[in-house]
């Protein structure tokens, strides 16, 4: 029987009513009295020396309040990077300044040069056209390997080269790994590209800065996944505003997928300009602007080698990856190709020796940072593609080869520094074989062939590390922030509860699922619980939502705070019933004395806490409000097995997804409906990466995919219904809910299944194709078929 409330119930979302009726409250819906508008004049060249920015004519244009340039920000901090990576030789990464407005040089198409604040948007834009620029164009650095060549043009003149870092992991294992390759019975090598992507949440970014001259308080309304992080980074490192004078509000946010984690120049600008002009200042990104100013994702070029012994056991993995950082280091950029990628290179397999080398490179392109999955899709894609290739070379079944090498005993310490707590990879593969009806594939292939189509089947596994992250561990790895989460549980006098969480929902449904947890713990109706987030003025310092961490870390903080509440309420109840605290039981919202018929309702206890007439004031403070900060002791490790069936039109190269099945293990599940929706969305983004999406630059650093006209977003007719199962559950052992993150799994697990399937389809027609780089557009598939 499905539950109708509490943990495990597919409770309908309370957020939905406001979104469905047009009553959502997004940042662009905020308009403040007297607000002015900013337009950013952005570079249309990828690389150039900014000799002169003449704003005099623009300043005189109608409605213009002021024109700002890089010179206005030269003395203040740049946008900070939140992660320091140490290279193979023990040296810190090269870390260039990232100015709010370009100063001295422009380094990518879209780099902001000037900011024009005017009474209207169009006046600001008119004035931008009156700014006279003298830019001496420099050769653009676009290709990563060329960027590292001797004598290459430097993106940053004050750095020694375009190399951000050369990272080896685990460096001490390198010799042993090389030796294992010398002894290998078989080595499979694959060179591949993990294509650059653009997150494209449907809501473009918006920032509204406000300044209260009476109190000296700053407020920033922004489309952020983590308002406290923005407050800390912008306040402390960019503008020098103490946190107690700065409030950051992220109201309803229309999707993020990573791109709204980072602190962006436009946020700092609007906050700064609001004080400088004593007017609220608003910026709304156009989609075209988003393409050249939101951080991009992925963009790795990798060579992976897999060594096997004579019995087809994996003995070693060795990789070399070039990772594009873009022109500047975005907030978490250095950590993505290293700690979120290298540590996942064991996958689901007991490969004893692994060495990962990553060279992070500066280029004249938009900065690259985390995008849904962040590092883990790159790792999974390499592992699962090279295994498929190895199986083909060895003439063995790809599923059998995977099963043979599965990790089966937990906890399992990988050779790349993480310890998987739980998992059952055979169980998810068994489940996949069932829901994907793999036995029926041969018959379906025949049907496709009868229609003149090639049909292929691709299968892969994934494991990922999320629920980010143990602060002491990430601190050792270079994080400049803690990654705990916080919650304040405020019980009101009449029993209702307000939870202020540091997690942020931008589509994940926390207002519903977090309330389900409290409802289960206390035994009151979820409608009695309100989840509040997204405003630094009312939540404790929290780290926000990314890395599939909200329930595992933020939910755990809420559980800890609620446990404190229950403990205190139990004491109050004991006092009210004149019983021993140890005899008090809480069930269905009532406290009772064990073995008696004495009980008091939740509301009686909460009222007593705030109207403490009959209350143990000598032992206990009145009130019922608790805060907890939860720092996880490990990541969570969701895993699963995915299968994709495609048809390829051999005449045009067009690929269609015919079936897609996902068997995931997320441990315990609070709201199955929401979890399934997360997997659906992740799969769509993974299919998008595999078939449709590819951000492209030309050799001059011009963005070729600057709008939805050229950057192909998955549409409804690009996907079939998806078969998603999460009945395999090995609960996480180290968080109180036993949950694992589910937000990124779909995007991590799906690209290799799609590519494996296309390769399988083409090979079924006798084409000797081992790999095609994503996105597998019709043109690329057709070109591959031409040999």
């Amino acid at each position, binding site marked *: 029987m499905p539950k109708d409330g509490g943990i495990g119930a597919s409770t309908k979302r309370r957020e939905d009513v406001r979104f469905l009726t047009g009553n959502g409250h997004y940042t662009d819906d905020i308009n403040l009295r007297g607000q002015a508008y900013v337009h950013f004049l952005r570079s249309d060249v990828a690389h150039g020396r900014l000799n002169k920015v003449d704003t005099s004519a623009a300043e005189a244009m109608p409605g213009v309040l002021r024109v700002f340039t890089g010179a206005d920000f030269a003395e203040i901090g740049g946008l900070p990077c939140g992660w320091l990576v140490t290279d193979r030789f023990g040296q810190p990464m090269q870390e260039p300044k990232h100015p709010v407005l370009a100063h001295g040089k422009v380094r990518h198409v879209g780099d902001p040069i000037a900011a024009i604040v005017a009474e209207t948007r*169009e006046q600001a*834009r*008119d004035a931008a056209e009156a700014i006279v620029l003298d830019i001496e164009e420099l050769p653009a650095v676009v290709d990563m390997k060329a960027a590292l060549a001797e004598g290459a043009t430097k993106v940053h003149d004050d750095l020694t080269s375009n190399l951000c870092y050369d990272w080896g992991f685990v460096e001490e294992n390198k010799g042993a790994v090389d030796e294992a390759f010398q002894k290998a019975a078989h080595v499979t090598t694959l060179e591949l590209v993990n294509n650059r992507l653009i997150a494209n949440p449907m809501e473009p970014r918006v920032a509204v800065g406000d300044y209260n001259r009476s109190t000296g308080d700053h407020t920033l309304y922004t489309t952020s996944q983590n308002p406290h992080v923005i407050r800390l980074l912008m306040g402390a490192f960019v503008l020098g505003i103490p946190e107690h004078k700065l409030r950051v509000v992220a109201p309803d946010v229309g999707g993020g997928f990573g791109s709204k984690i980072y602190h962006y120049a436009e946020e700092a600008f609007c906050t700064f300009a609001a004080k400088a002009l004593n007017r609220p200042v608003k910026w709304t990104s*156009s989609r*075209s602007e988003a393409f050249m100013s939101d951080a991009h994702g992925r963009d790795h070029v990798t060579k992976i080698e897999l060594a096997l012994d004579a019995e087809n056991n994996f003995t070693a993995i060795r990789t070399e990856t070039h990772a594009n950082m873009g022109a500047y280091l975005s907030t978490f950029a250095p950590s993505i190709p290293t700690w979120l990628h290298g540590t996942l290179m064991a996958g689901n397999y007991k490969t004893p020796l692994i060495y990962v080398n990553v060279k992070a490179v500066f280029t004249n392109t938009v900065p690259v940072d985390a995008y849904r999955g962040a590092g883990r899709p790159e790792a999974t894609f390499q592992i699962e593609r090279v295994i498929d290739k190895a199986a083909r070379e060895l003439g063995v079944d790809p599923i059998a080869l995977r099963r043979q090498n599965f990790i089966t005993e937990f906890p399992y310490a990988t050779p790349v520094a993480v310890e998987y707590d739980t998992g059952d990879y055979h169980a998810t593969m068994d489940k996949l074989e069932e829901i994907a009806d793999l036995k029926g594939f041969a018959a379906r292939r025949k049907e496709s062939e009868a229609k003149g189509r090639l049909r292929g089947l691709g299968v892969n596994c994934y494991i990922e590390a999320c629920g980010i992250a143990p602060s002491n561990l990430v601190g050792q790895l270079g994080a400049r922030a803690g990654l705990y989460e916080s919650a304040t549980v405020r019980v009101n006098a009449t029993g209702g509860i307000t939870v202020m969480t540091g997690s942020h929902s931008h589509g994940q449904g926390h207002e519903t699922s977090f309330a389900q947890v409290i409802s289960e713990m206390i035994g009151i109706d979820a409608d009695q619980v309100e989840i509040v987030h997204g405003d630094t003025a009312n939540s404790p310092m929290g780290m926000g939502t990314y890395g599939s961490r909200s329930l595992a870390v933020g939910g755990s903080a809420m559980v800890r705070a609620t446990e404190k509440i229950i403990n205190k309420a139990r004491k109050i109840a004991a006092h009210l019933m004149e019983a021993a605290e140890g005899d008090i039981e809480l069930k269905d919202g009532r406290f009772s004395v064990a073995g008696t018929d004495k009980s008091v309702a939740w509301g009686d206890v909460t009222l007593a806490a705030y109207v403490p007439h009959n209350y143990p004031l000598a032992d206990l403070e009145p009130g019922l409000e608790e805060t907890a900060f939860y720092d996880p002791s490990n990541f969570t490790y969701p895993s699963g097995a995915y299968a994709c069936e495609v048809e390829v039109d051999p*005449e*045009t190269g*067009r690929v269609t997804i015919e079936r897609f099945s996902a068997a995931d293990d997320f441990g315990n599940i609070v709201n199955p409906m929401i979890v399934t929706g997360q997997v659906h969305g992740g799969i769509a983004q993974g299919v998008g990466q595999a078939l*449709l999406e590819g951000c*492209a630059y030309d050799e001059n650093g011009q963005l*070729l*995919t600057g709008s*939805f*006209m*050229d*950057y*192909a*977003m998955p549409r409804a007719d690009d996907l079939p219904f998806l078969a998603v199962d999460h009945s395999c559950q090995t609960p996480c052992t180290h968080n109180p809910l036993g949950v694992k993150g589910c937000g990124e799994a779909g995007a991590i697990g799906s690209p290799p299944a799609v590519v494996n399937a296309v390769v399988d389809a083409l090979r079924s027609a006798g084409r000797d194709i081992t790999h095609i780089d994503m996105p597998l*557009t*019709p*043109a690329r598939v*057709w*070109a591959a078929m031409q040999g």
Partner: protein
Amino acid sequence: MYAFEIDRPNTLADAVKALGAEEAQALGGGQTLIPALKQRLASPARLVALSGVAEIKGICTGDDGALCIGGGTTHADVAAGAGAYPALAALAANIGDPAVRNRGTIGGSLANNDPSACYPAAVLGSGATVVTTNRQIAADDFFEGMFTTTLEDGEIITEVRFPVPEAASYQKFEQPASRFALVGVFVARFADGVRVAVTGASEEGVFRWSEAEAALSKDFAPAALEGLSLSGDGMISDLHGSGDYRAHLVAVMTRRAVAAAG
């Protein structure tokens, strides 16, 4: 967008008069022009919206049997009302998306002559006549390369007259992002021969594939196209496909159009 005035005349005569003003430009459904204005790629002083001009909307059959479509008729209305010419109705039903089809017009599409638009293939493939406020223009004389036509300033497309073929089909292979035609081929069989018009492929815009026309006029069957191919030279080559790929697709889509036309 730059600032401009907007006129909304109710008669063709008023529209023509309004277009006589300095830097005036006609606005059809706006589905291409408005995005261009947002990018500040055009700066008309005055836009003359044709959406209020009832006399250039609608579909009828002419005395010669031609299907006559008013220049201001939306794609949705053509899709619903051009039943006498099913291949044309099907083409209209697959332009853009439903909301775009509810605004975009045949006259606007033809005047813009986007090299990847669908309607130019239908007009050229059918040997249609473009009727304007000044004259009648044969399809073969109308298109002059990407985004260029023989229309003069202030000239409004009032009607397009399509001779209805015995059999026809339009096959579009979509560019994955924009969903415009990467290659679209319109094949129409008339009593006196076959016309084949190709959109999306050439750097010169829509064109007729004369070798295919000759072969199909002899034998209207996919097999008749065997051995015929186009060169990738002069074909559009971009992120979404090389010239060679487009040339290849022209042959594939032509075959499929012939098969579908039956």
